């Protein structure tokens, strides 16, 4: 499913019907500070859409507006075809929210957290009891059902928060940095759950500053910086547009002046990045470029050819000194 780069309004093949999120010139200001600066975005049904960006880029503010818990300052916003300003409760009834900070009810047990949350959505006690068991099983917390929330590990709390967000069978799940602060096992366990939800047709909208998370989960993403979109597209398109297929990393030892070596490799590739400890050569053929480096008589202490990642895109777009 080819998606034109830099056209975030294009609806991918998985979709049908009107967009679940539709924003035009969406703006959020807090006093003099502009957190979100006139963004345009559409998210189609069934899509996994990511907001990628450094801290303070405006991701969370955007998510709160989409979640109808923060009124936009300016611009148009439609969620599920409805206006958050007037239809907030009706929209929230059909959303699932995983906030950045755990907001589990610490005065209740694991199971009770799900039970009462379902009740807030107007579900009957019988319906929510059945749903709670199903969700506890889904997030592998059935054996902790009677425990209090506080002693759970960070990963378990996150899984419970995800279970809670699913209690109303939401059409769209909003995840604000879902795996920040988790260990690798917990992250993979969460990704697995999210991937299964996606396969079931749940629309995912998430924020992250982890590139691997964005690559794993997102069909389409935007890189946000200072309240605006710096780039838009699928992970692969972004890499193709803003980076190269591969990256050659050269290390010349601790005392080497990397600027000198940057001059010596000049012309081999279109873009060289000088870091304190290494040179990054952006290339479509890493091994070929490495051979060319040796042909120039250079003998780096180590060479590494790796696939280009979103991280390369991200750092290029949101800042690190570059030599083009």
């Amino acid at each position, binding site marked *: 499913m080819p998606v034109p780069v830099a056209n975030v309004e294009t609806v991918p093949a998985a979709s049908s019907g009107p967009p679940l999120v539709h924003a035009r010139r969406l703006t959020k200001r807090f006093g003099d500070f502009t957190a979100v600066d006139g963004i345009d975005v559409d998210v189609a049904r069934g899509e996994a859409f990511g907001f990628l960006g450094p801290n303070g880029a405006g991701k969370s503010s955007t998510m709160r507006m989409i979640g109808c818990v923060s009124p936009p300052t300016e611009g148009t916003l439609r969620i599920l075809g409805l206006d958050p300003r007037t239809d907030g409760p009706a929209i929230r009834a059909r959303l699932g929210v995983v906030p950045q900070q755990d907001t589990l009810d610490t*005065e209740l047990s694991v199971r009770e957290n799900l039970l009462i*949350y379902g009740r807030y959505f107007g579900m009957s006690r019988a319906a929510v009891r059945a749903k709670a068991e199903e969700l506890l099983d889904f997030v592998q917390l059935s054996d902790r059902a009677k425990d209090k929330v506080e002693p759970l590990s960070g990963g378990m709390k996150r899984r419970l928060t995800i279970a809670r967000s699913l209690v109303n069978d939401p059409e769209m799940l909003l995840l604000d940095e879902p795996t920040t602060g988790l260990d690798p096992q917990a992250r993979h366990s969460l990704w697995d759950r999210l991937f299964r939800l996606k396969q079931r047709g749940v629309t995912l909208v998430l924020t992250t500053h982890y590139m691997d998370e964005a690559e794993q989960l997102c069909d389409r993403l935007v890189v946000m910086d200072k309240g605006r979109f710096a780039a838009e597209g699928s992970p692969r398109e972004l890499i193709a547009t803003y980076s190269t297929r591969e990256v050659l990393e050269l290390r010349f030892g601790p005392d080497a002046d990397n600027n000198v070596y940057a001059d010596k490799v000049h012309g081999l590739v279109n873009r060289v990045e000088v870091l304190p400890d290494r040179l990054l050569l952006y290339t479509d053929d890493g091994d070929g470029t490495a051979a060319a480096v040796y042909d120039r008589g250079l003998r780096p202490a180590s060479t590494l050819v790796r696939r280009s990642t979103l991280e390369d895109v991200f750092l290029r777009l949101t800042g690190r000194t570059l030599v083009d």
Partner: protein
Amino acid sequence: MTQTIGSATPSSGRNSGTLLARIVPLPGTSARRAGLMVERNVLVYRRAWVLIVSGFFEPLFYLLSIGIGIGALVGTVTVDGMVLDYTVFVAPGLLASSAMNGAVYDSTFNIFFKLKYAKTYDAILSTPMSPGDVAAGEICWALIRGLIYSTTFLGVMLALGLVASPWAILVLPAAVLIGFAFGAVGMAATTYMRGWQDFEFVQLIVLPMFLFATTFFPLSTYPSALQAVVVCTPLYHGVELIRALTTGLVDGSLVVHIGYLVVMGLIGLRIAAGRLEKLLLT
């Protein structure tokens, strides 16, 4: 499993499911959803019922110590030309004060913890629940707790022969009204608190009222200038309301007491809901 919220009117965002909501328009508040907030608290206290029982003992100890102990020294008090046993005089004052204390405690410490630390309300507001639902539900819960205490205290008063009038049947709704007035204002105040230190101000207001708002001695004890000050305090109206009902000294001033507490509660509730919205939905 989503259900549309039948009582919400999306176009205006307002709903008048209860009499209260019609008097004080709270945006998007429904009695059913406020009831879910109560349901949450019932879940919490189902395990911690001992905490609820403990709240009953404070006014009981006061009654035994001051009412019966000091009462034996004081003897009688004359109110409106009627001679009352001191215990009969002080018991309704203690009941009104404990209704105030319970409501204030519930609506300040408990609410502050959930608001600032547990982020309980942030999670709740991601559902169809509105700030008005949360505010009304939390105050409602404080009233239910208060009602349990008032009922048991009234039972003790009956057992000790401290109730002199059939009007006393109205003591329970009156105590709920006191709880509503103080609970709503307490919650509104809590939304302005920056840290735990600010709760000192609550004590600074509540304790003098408890000691001086005619709980322990009649208004006529004060010089007239001070009487005017005491009459302005909300607890004075609460104490006088309950005392009129248990002693049977009922007159037109009852309307003033009730009116004062109703208006105070409604204003508090309106401010609390508005502030919750401002704090949490920014």
